[in-house]
């Protein structure tokens, strides 16, 4: 069953961004299942359910109330159960500090939220179709930030 589609999860406190995210995947002709959570706590609760189905790709907004994306990232990387989840940072900021921190904590890719819907569609389509095995092996600080 899981081979049929890619299971994508987003944690973002911004209602608009969640809407864009869902709409973009609706318009993309890719077999995906999309789930969204409105903050880090909600996300971690869902993931920590023993019978939870784990996503293939997890998109993390950094600036969230209660539990930030970075905190989620650290928690996920500490737990061996989540080792197969590819983590994409999905943030408005592209400050050196944020990029550095998330890279060091083991995120797989860093996406700066684009300001055009078509760009968003393209980025999401690229991320979903990435060969993660290949990408993760050759990961370095230069190709960590996804550029259009």
């Amino acid at each position, binding site marked *: 069953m899981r081979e049929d589609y890619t299971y994508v999860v987003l944690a973002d406190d911004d209602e*608009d961004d969640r809407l864009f995210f869902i709409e973009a995947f609706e318009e993309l002709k890719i077999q995906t299942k999309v789930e969204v959570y409105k903050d880090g706590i909600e996300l971690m609760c869902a993931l920590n359910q023993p019978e939870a189905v784990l996503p293939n790709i997890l998109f993390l907004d950094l600036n969230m109330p209660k539990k930030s994306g970075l905190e989620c990232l650290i928690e996920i990387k500490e737990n061996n159960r989540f080792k197969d989840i590819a983590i994409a940072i999905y943030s*408005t900021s592209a*400050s050196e500090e944020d990029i550095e921190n998330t890279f060091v904590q083991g995120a797989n890719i860093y996406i700066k939220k684009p*300001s055009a819907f*078509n760009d968003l569609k393209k980025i999401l389509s690229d991320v979903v179709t990435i060969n993660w095995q290949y990408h993760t092996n050759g990961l370095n600080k230069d190709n960590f930030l996804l550029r259009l």
Partner: protein
Amino acid sequence: MPFKFISNSERFLKIIFGVSLFVVLVMGGVAYRYIKELSNSINDVQHNYQVHIELEKMLSALKDAESGKRGFIISQDSTFLLPLLSSNQQIENSLEELKKLTLKDPQQQENIAELKEKIDKSLAIFEKTLQLSIANNPDSREFIAGFREGRQTMNSVRFKINEMTAHENDVLGLAKEKSVRRLSNAPMLLYYVLILSLLILLLTYLQISKNLKVLKVKNELLETFKKSTTQSEVISKHGNWIWHVEEDVYEYSDNLFRLLGEEPQSFEPNLENYLSFVHPDDVEKLSEHVSQMIEHEDLPFIHYRIIQKNGSIKHFKAYAKILVDADGYKRLLGTTADITDEIENYRLIEKRNLELERSNKELSSFNYVASHDLQEPLRKIQTFLSRLEDKEKDNLSNSGKLYIERIKASSSRMRSLIDDLLQFSRTNKSEEALEDSNINILIEAAKTDLAEIIADKKARIIVDDIPSMRAIPFQIKQLFLNLLSNSLKYSRENTSPFITVSYSKTNASDVPKVSHTKYNVFHTITIMDKGIGFDQDYAEKIFVLFNRLHNKNEYSGTGIGLSICKKIVENHNGYIIAKGEVGVGATFTIYLPIT
């Protein structure tokens, strides 16, 4: 060297003293011998004189006896015979005396024996002639013969006495000669010794006066030193103290009293009195330090507070070191400084630093607000606009479409403003360290970023080979990106832009508008274009934040790009200078120091 001189002269004086002592002893010895010799001579003369007298006495006694005998013979008066009796005794005495006097002279002893014989004989003849005269036979031949014989023996006695006198004179003469020989050298010797003593005295005087002069100079130096120390104590707010270890006695300098807020030497300098000034919280600490000082005869740097009589609290710092002089006498030399001002300044600086840190934090949180919170709504506006365009385009009137275009242009301008502002505020020196950078590669990277516009405008960019230099790579790339895009942007219409980037070296003195710098030589990179140029009057103004020479409808831009360039160059301790002429082109020259 002066101390060596003093010690040398001390040795010299010791030697001189030894020599003088010796000379005085010699002089004393010589004088003693001289006097002794003289008294010997006097003794000799006296002895000679006594012998003479005794001989004379004897002779006169003999003569008395003779003349008494003659008187008796002539007058037959027996009273004339009286001296005869006493002269016998006199002769006996004189002989005894002579024997004693000439005990050391064998020849005289012999002479005395002979004399005695002759006197005895003469006395015997006396007796005989006297008897004859008593018997009244003065005219007998026997009497006359006796008389003659008497005269002969008398002569021989006189002769012997003369002989003895002569002998005695000879002995005296010999002794005199001998002592004269011995004594003749003495006055000369004494004279020489005297001269020598005077010389030594003179030398000693010279040496001592020289020493005194040196000591005087040293004293003056010490006096000057003392005054300057007192002065420096007052200026630099410190006081000196001495602890005489053996006697456990303290000495405080005047200024130490002043530091305590007291009149100089107004109380007895001892530990108890001093501790009465110390801040109650520090008394224990200081006492501990002092007891350690007494134990180890050393005092490392310590800090404590004191309270002056007027209630003001001062911070003190003290340090001491042991000094052992040549005699093994131990003194602990201490310095106590009032560091209240230092500490207050330090606190002020600390406070300022905290304020600075806080304002820096505020700035960086402002950065975050700008980068994140301001961009987010803007991004949403843009995304919704793109959704509107995609989904609702057909439902919009033409003017509606125009308005959407205007909103799009405005929002993208706002985006570039935010981006550039962020870029400007992030261009900070402290963030990145200088590293050896290949400038050619950085320029190439900037060109790659501009590839699209270069292709659109068919621009030609010629770049010299530029040596590697110490720089912050991403900032230098940004610098060329901004300058090249500037040149591309302000190119002349209908002419493909032509930009040259050239390199040279410039001496510090030839860098314009720079009066003094710690660097000697500068890398000089010149970016020249044949674009629309600008009025030279604005050459300085274009580097000021948000300053634009053109209306934003003519040329897009935020007015931040060149400000970023200036900031980057200044981060590298360099200078950037613009030159322009309207319609001819613009030249930007960058001077970066060679380190």
